[in-house]
């Protein structure tokens, strides 16, 4: 037996085997995502060719179709039009269609942004306040309150959707940005409080006590000493809240229609002529998933904490 290395260290053969299996798994698990991104750069015909094309001539047709509304025209009518001015107009004309205007995608995407940022800001701000209080003060029924906050996450969204629907109709909040911001803020609040409490617990109490001895009030100490110290945790929490709002579907599809609808309920409705326009759906999906992938890479050190509500910190 090889005695030169510690017996706890896995042998180099077993390491290589593990690495190989993990690499194979990673490749397989990334195929669906890569396939969607590839599809977004195909043209409509090559997206529905069989066997599926791995090598193809890239095209921006999906992106053009995603951002425009088009209508089919007769060849005579197309001939009577002046020559197309832009490359995308030319692309659409080659399919015997003309652009009739911009699609709703940008509006839905910016709704996702507005509602996402608004609710993230609100839930992190309120969450930080509550988390600080739970972390530092003796609050009556603290554990019960914390459990109550967590338990709100167990409701099936559909169970509370009808009452919220009725309530929002009465308050005039139905299908508005503000209504959705408030709703997502509340849904994210439990995550924000639990995660931030963990981060605040890690900041030594002595910091703000020193500041208070120097003449700061409790509020000043919180804003000037504790918050800057908790910045990493706040950023991680904010990204988690953002991802949740960004991805949320059930409330969006049930409570919004025209004004405040976000992208997730919209993407499935992108339909081309004679069936689903896969390159356009691919393009919408790609643009929608891109921010989340970047966020995930930024977040990688805090992932575990975020997905377990701070229950597992590593």
């Amino acid at each position, binding site marked *: 037996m090889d005695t030169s290395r510690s*017996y706890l260290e896995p042998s180099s053969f077993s390491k290589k085997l593990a690495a190989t299996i*993990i690499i194979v798994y990673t490749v397989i698990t990334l195929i669906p995502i890569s396939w969607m991104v590839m599809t977004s750069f195909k043209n409509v015909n090559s997206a529905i060719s069989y066997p599926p094309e791995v090598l193809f001539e890239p095209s921006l047709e999906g992106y053009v179709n995603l951002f425009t509304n088009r209508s089919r025209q007769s060849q005579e009518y197309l001939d009577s039009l002046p020559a197309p001015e832009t490359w995308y107009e030319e692309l659409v004309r080659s399919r015997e269609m003309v652009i009739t205007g911009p699609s709703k995608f940008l509006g839905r995407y910016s709704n996702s942004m507005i509602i996402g940022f608004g609710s993230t800001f609100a839930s992190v701000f309120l969450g930080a306040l509550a988390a600080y209080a739970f972390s530092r003060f003796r609050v009556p029924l603290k554990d019960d309150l914390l459990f109550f906050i967590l338990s709100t996450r167990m409701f*099936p969204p*559909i169970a509370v959707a009808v009452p919220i629907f009725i309530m929002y109709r009465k308050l005039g909040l139905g299908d508005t940005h503000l209504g959705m911001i408030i*709703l997502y803020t509340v849904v994210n609040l439990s995550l924000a409080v639990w995660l931030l409490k963990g981060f605040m617990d890690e900041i030594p109490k002595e910091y703000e006590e020193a500041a208070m001895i120097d003449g700061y009030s409790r509020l000043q100490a919180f804003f000037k000493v504790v918050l800057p110290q908790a910045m990493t945790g706040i950023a991680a929490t904010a990204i988690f809240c953002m991802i949740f709002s960004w991805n949320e579907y059930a409330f969006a599809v*049930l409570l919004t229609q025209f004004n405040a609808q976000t992208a997730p309920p919209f993407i499935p409705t992108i339909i081309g002529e004679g069936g689903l326009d896969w390159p356009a759906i691919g393009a919408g*999906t790609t643009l929608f998933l891109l921010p989340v992938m970047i966020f995930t890479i930024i977040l990688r050190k805090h992932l575990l904490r975020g997905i377990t509500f701070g229950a597992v910190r590593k």
Partner: protein
Amino acid sequence: MSVKKKFKGLSDKAVAWLFIGPSVFLLLAINIYPLIYAIRMSFTNFYANKIGREPQFVGLKNYIKVLNKEAIWEKMQVTANFMFWTLLLQAVIGLGLALLLNRKFKGNELLTTLIVLPMMLSPAVVGVFWTYLYNPQVGLFNYVVNFFYDFGSFDMIGSSELAPWSIVIVDTWMWTPFTMLICLAGLRSVPNYLYEAAEVDRASKWQQFIYITLPSVLPFLLLALLFRGIENFKMFDMVVELTSGGPGSATELASINLKREAFEKWKTGYSSAFAVILFVTIFGFGNVYVKVMNKIKER
């Protein structure tokens, strides 16, 4: 005079309430009030689309109707089936991956991040793009399966035998990284001296796995399954976009049925009773599970 008064500004107690107040208020207004409202409606024959009509109190009639409806038990069975297979597969594959990643080879941080990607995506959008992968004529999934073994033409979403598996596969693809990450944390929490002592006692690798690794990772695995269990019991978005509950009602999970009753048939009273039953079920199972989990942890 109390010690606290040495510092200027609001007292700690005032700050505590000032800080917690807004959050608790919002949760009460947007979460608890709707829940109470739903409970109240569950005792009436209210229809949310008929505004002028005064709802009448009907007692437990809605609950009796829900519990006696055979179709509801079918939905519960579909949900239980979905939960059983997704949790089983995610536990086995997730733990397996975690054990492999724990060998700490080069590049394993990067690979972990890449593996985790699917679970961060929007479930509804994931559902949409899997309909493309599962497409019986042009889908990549069907092509790959037929490449390895020629089944001929098959339709994952359109056939009532295969559709339940189609949602199990997507959910497992998406959420296995979740159990993996949590198990990995469990594996890393095992102190090295346990293995050293086992080595000294000449325990085989297999014995070390059974008596050290598995018991230490078990509480973490159970926690992961609790989270996944709650989420999959509520499962809605991914499945709605993938199969919309079909074909027929082969993949109509409890939440999807609830949505149909509440937002398509507008049977508000009846669907509220169903929602309350679902909520009590999650809460009840969750509590029992946590008790069992804590017992296992104590051992």
